């Protein structure tokens, strides 16, 4: 048996370095096949994301919803559910937040309306997630298909609202609903477009998630059910009830992300309001080993790749989906690493 002594840490560091070197080589090959100069491409990825304060502001703006989604996913993974419906939950949150903001400022103070919009988003997202949870516990529908089906439904509802009841006066188009009055925008630092409120909220959610999972009875129950539902049931826990609770928490976080996209980023409802953060968050949490720990840092890294890749089509005439390839290969490499570690653990006495 080897403890986590210096030797253990050295080995972990070594593994991670090997993994990074392998990934770097793999992505270099992919770039060479596509006929793009690899060093240039990596340089643009870096400059395009962290090269200036404005870029960092963009990264932080994406980091907020992605991290919120990831925090939510940790709850549903902890209890053993594959919540693929995050995307739909973000949309549901965005739609509900928009519904609140459409009431305008007549009813009360703008800041109150913003708070209400966030609460609406939380409520919408968690209801959408609970729906998938109920379909699983009461309907016997696998949560992967329930969640996925609801993603498409949420997308349909969003499109219908943008082109139907909520269309801009005169024209309905993919560009979305009418922009809200400035008073209903989430306050941002001028020039950098950084939302201090959104950042504070996200840090708060990270801390709260960590505390709930580690320090509360709920966290313990979720962990118990996730690792062995039968044993947990015999101990008097009701897995089905905790499934719903975990989904509600996951949906609440995703809905918050949707509300942020509406109030802090686009200031209106657009068809792609979720920006695929729901799916990306699944990759983030998988790379983090289904735990909270590294998730915020990985989310920052992933958004940096996304923001940096925007320049690629202009500068090198290659598609911006390179960022997705790098993210995917990272997660695959991590899965390989986990498998390797487990195998080694099995062979050691």
């Amino acid at each position, binding site marked *: 048996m080897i403890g986590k002594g210096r030797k253990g840490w050295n080995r972990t560091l070594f593994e991670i370095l090997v993994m990074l070197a392998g990934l770097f080589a793999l992505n270099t090959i992919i770039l060479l096949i*596509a006929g793009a100069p690899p060093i240039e491409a990596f340089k643009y990825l870096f400059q395009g994301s962290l090269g200036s304060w404005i870029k960092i502001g963009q990264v932080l703006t994406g980091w907020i919803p992605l991290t919120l989604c990831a925090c939510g996913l940790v709850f549903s993974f902890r209890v053993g559910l594959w919540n693929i419906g995050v995307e739909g939950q973000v949309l549901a949150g965005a739609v509900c937040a928009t519904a609140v903001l459409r009431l305008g400022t007549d009813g009360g103070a703008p800041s109150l309306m913003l708070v209400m919009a966030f609460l609406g988003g939380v409520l919408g997202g968690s209801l959408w997630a609970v729906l998938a949870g109920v379909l699983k516990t009461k309907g016997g*529908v696998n949560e992967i*298909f329930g969640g*996925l*089906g609801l993603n498409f439904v949420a997308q349909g509802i969003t499109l219908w609202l943008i082109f139907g009841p909520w269309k801009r006066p005169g024209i309905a188009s993919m560009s979305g609903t009418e922009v809200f009055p400035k008073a209903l925008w989430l306050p941002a630092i001028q020039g950098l477009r950084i939302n201090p409120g959104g950042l504070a909220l996200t840090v708060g959610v990270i801390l709260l998630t960590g505390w709930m999972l580690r320090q509360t009875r709920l966290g313990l129950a979720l962990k118990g059910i996730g690792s062995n539902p039968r044993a947990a049931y015999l101990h008097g826990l009701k897995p089905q009830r905790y499934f719903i609770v975990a989904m509600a928490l996951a949906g609440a976080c995703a809905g918050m992300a949707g509300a942020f996209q509406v109030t802090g980023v686009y200031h209106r409802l657009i068809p792609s309001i979720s920006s695929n953060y729901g799916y990306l968050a699944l990759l983030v949490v998988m790379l983090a080993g289904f735990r909270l720990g590294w998730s915020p840092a990985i989310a920052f890294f992933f958004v940096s790749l996304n923001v940096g890749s925007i320049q690629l089509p202009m500068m090198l005439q290659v598609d911006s989906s390179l960022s997705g390839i790098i993210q995917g290969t990272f997660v*695959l490499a991590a899965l390989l690493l986990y498998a390797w570690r487990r195998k080694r653990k099995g062979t050691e006495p």
Partner: protein
Amino acid sequence: MNDLNVAVILGSIVAGAAPIVLASLGETISEKAGVINLSLDGSILLSAMVAFVTAFETKNLLLGFAGGAAAGAVIAGVVGLFSIYLGQSQVAVGFVLTLTARDLAYFFGNPYARQYGPQVIPWPIPGLHEIPLVGQAFFNHGWIVYASMLMIFLCWWYFYRTPQGLRLRMVGEHPEAAYARGTDSRAVQMTYTVIGGLLVGLAGAAFSLCVKPGWGRPQGAEGTGWIALAIVIFGGWHPVKVALGAYLFSFLQVMGIQFQRWWPSIPAQVFQVAPFPLMIFTLLLLSAAQRRSGADLDGAPSILARIVGVLGGAPPRALGKTFSPE
């Protein structure tokens, strides 16, 4: 609406169903062996791109189809390697690959977007295609459409009429028992995962070389993989019923386009997503009714339960579980 219109609509339903039939049959094969290949949506896109680019560069359609099939097989092989031999979650690996394969398709396909390339030309079957309605609907298509129809029968025959098919089903139901009787369950699972992937790759090739010729972003095949995964459940892991599900979905898609023609005021995008929730909700209904029919022991089964009895089926018992011989 006149007679010709109905024939054209029927024909487009049958043609549009071809890739969905191929993809859902491919998934049925790997799931019958106990492996969920969740990467379908990305696999289809990647193989559509590979097929189009290969056919475009070599000016050879057959090479295009071979390239598409190979791409599907490689992705399925990765799913198999990670889940069967390395013990990682099938859902996790499949999900990552869905996103990664999609991005690979867009990344490498970028220079080929909106180009005109070779495509499958219809081969009307002599004599048969002149039959009113039926001829236009079934016998006036590209060869890949006929191949997809043939594949339904082939799958059924292989599963239920051959010793290899019996072994395949045994591994999917009880890999431990199969192993104890001398079958290398992991090798069987790996083989059928790759074969299933081949069919998924053909489905992608059928998209870019026949049904929606060309390559672009978006390609128009997005979402099909998820639907195929749902169709496998809808069809109860039985190839004939699975194929029926694929035709039903194609019908919904074509009707969506028709409805849009009839009500132009409703935006196209709504109709594009409409078949997806419809399909998924059919699935929910099936599953819910299936449960109820099991619980109600007294009295005759309801009509709903009867329909479900015809359509639904039980999943292979070892589906999604990783088998290890140690």
